[in-house]
């Protein structure tokens, strides 16, 4: 029996096996979405019941909401606002993720830094985002910088805490293996340290993503003249309940999309090495 044959046929067989495996995994993942879809539809059913009970002025039902949202999208009013909000969210989130991950990992390597940063992280986590928004409005005015800053500063402590925890819990035994085999610092970082830290980072990033959308809508509602939050404020002022619900649904849809089409598959791919029961 030969292993590791270097004939071209062996390479192609391996590649096609990988492709088939990948396609199968995607289909399996999408199929597993039936459970999530069922749960969401159940929620919609409750919503419809509530809408019929309270009447369209107080709680428009899902059908009216989706119809209104469809109109907004078709008329070309919704897409630019959503794009603006998405841009601000992702900018702020990106800054928080970058700074939080790097600084958190560095802090995790030093006991002093870890001790010093714990109360500061608690402070930052406890600060309500709306307080940050008030400060940002005073510092940056009504432009782009206000929502972006608020998102960044609200998400930073979550990512920082996750990265720090990941770096602090590095397995000394595996580091010993790297030292005995004289692996370069680069190989040690990539093959021994990073995969462990990433398993702490990914959940932190997912949490931060959820928070970033909440904060950006709040920031735009109060301090911006464009974006989904501002549109929400306008539709509220016009007592357009269906429109308000429509904007909310649009933002939630974007959030669900990014989380389940981007981050969740990323997490599952990277976390394949974990035991099957830990998800």
């Amino acid at each position, binding site marked *: *029996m030969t*292993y*590791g044959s*270097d004939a071209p046929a062996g390479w192609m067989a391996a590649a096609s096996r990988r492709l088939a495996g990948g396609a199968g995994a995607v289909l399996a993942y999408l199929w597993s979405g039936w459970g999530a879809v069922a749960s969401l539809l159940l929620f919609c059913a409750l919503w419809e019941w509530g809408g019929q009970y309270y009447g369209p002025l107080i709680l428009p039902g899902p059908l009216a909401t989706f119809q209104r949202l469809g109109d907004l999208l078709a008329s070309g009013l919704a897409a630019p606002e959503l794009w603006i909000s998405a841009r601000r969210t992702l900018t702020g989130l990106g800054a928080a993720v970058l700074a939080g991950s790097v600084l958190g990992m560095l802090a995790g390597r030093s006991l002093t830094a870890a001790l010093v940063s714990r109360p500061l992280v608690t402070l930052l986590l406890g600060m309500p985002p709306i307080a940050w928004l008030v400060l940002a409005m005073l510092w940056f005015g009504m432009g782009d910088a206000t929502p972006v800053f608020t998102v960044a500063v609200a998400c930073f402590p979550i990512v920082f805490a996750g990265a720090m925890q990941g770096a602090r819990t590095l397995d000394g*035994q*595996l580091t*010993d*293996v790297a*030292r*005995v*085999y*004289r*692996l*370069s610092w680069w*190989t040690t970082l990539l*093959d*021994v340290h990073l*995969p*462990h830290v990433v398993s702490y980072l990914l959940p932190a990033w997912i949490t931060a993503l959820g928070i970033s959308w909440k904060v950006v809508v709040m920031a735009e509602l109060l301090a911006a003249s464009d974006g989904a939050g501002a549109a929400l404020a306008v539709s509220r002022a016009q007592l357009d309940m269906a429109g308000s619900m429509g904007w909310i649904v649009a933002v939630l849809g974007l959030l669900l999309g990014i989380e389940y089409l981007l981050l969740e598959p990323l997490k599952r791919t990277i976390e*394949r*090495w*974990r*035991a099957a029961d830990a998800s």
Partner: protein
Amino acid sequence: MTALAIRRLGHRYGLTSVLSGVDLDLRAGETLALVGPSGCGKSTLLHVVAGLLEPSEGRVRSTFRGIGCVFQQPRLMPWKHAVDNIALGMKALRVPAAARRRRALDWAARMGLSAEDGRKYPHELSGGMQSRVALGRALAVAPELLLLDEPFAALDVGLKLELYAVLREQVERGGSAVLMITHDLMEAVRLADRIAVMASGPGRVLHEFAVERPRAARDEAWIHRTTADLMGMPPVRECFGLVPVPEAGT
């Protein structure tokens, strides 16, 4: 020409003295087995030789260039397949990726792992398979000094005999020196050129035996007999806390 010289080695963890006054020599190509009770500092000694610990006192001088080490736990990277784990040690040797993979697959086969097992993550492998992967990782770098900390403890007899053969072949072909820790006296008699018996509290070498017969000539009957003889000798019984064997004729 001595390649590893340990002189008056001592180590303390806090106030507890774990090793004291250890003298050992290991020549190139030689296999030395360390036998002793649990907690006598054998693993600490191995860690010092591997360069992971700075000893509190004494000197370790080693001219061995490549080191392979198998720890008591397999210590595999949980996020890598078995084959990638075996290939890991070769990264430091600047072996290109394709050659690394080829050699790793080769060693996986020699360790008795199927192609399917090679693609599994460590959590999907049994303890015995994980030990084999760890051993493959150490052997794949063709080290001049091989450090083994009870590597065969988790394996059944049949597998042990297979891997003894693999180890012997690697040692004879590659000329590796081996420093192995084992609880199993028979394993030491089977594989080693010299056996050092250690006592605990603090760890020190009580006695050294040379195993005269060449490895190829050691048959099962001889191994069993010699093990039984060794088990009767006073230093061995003393280090394991056993009652001395009464003198014949009394």
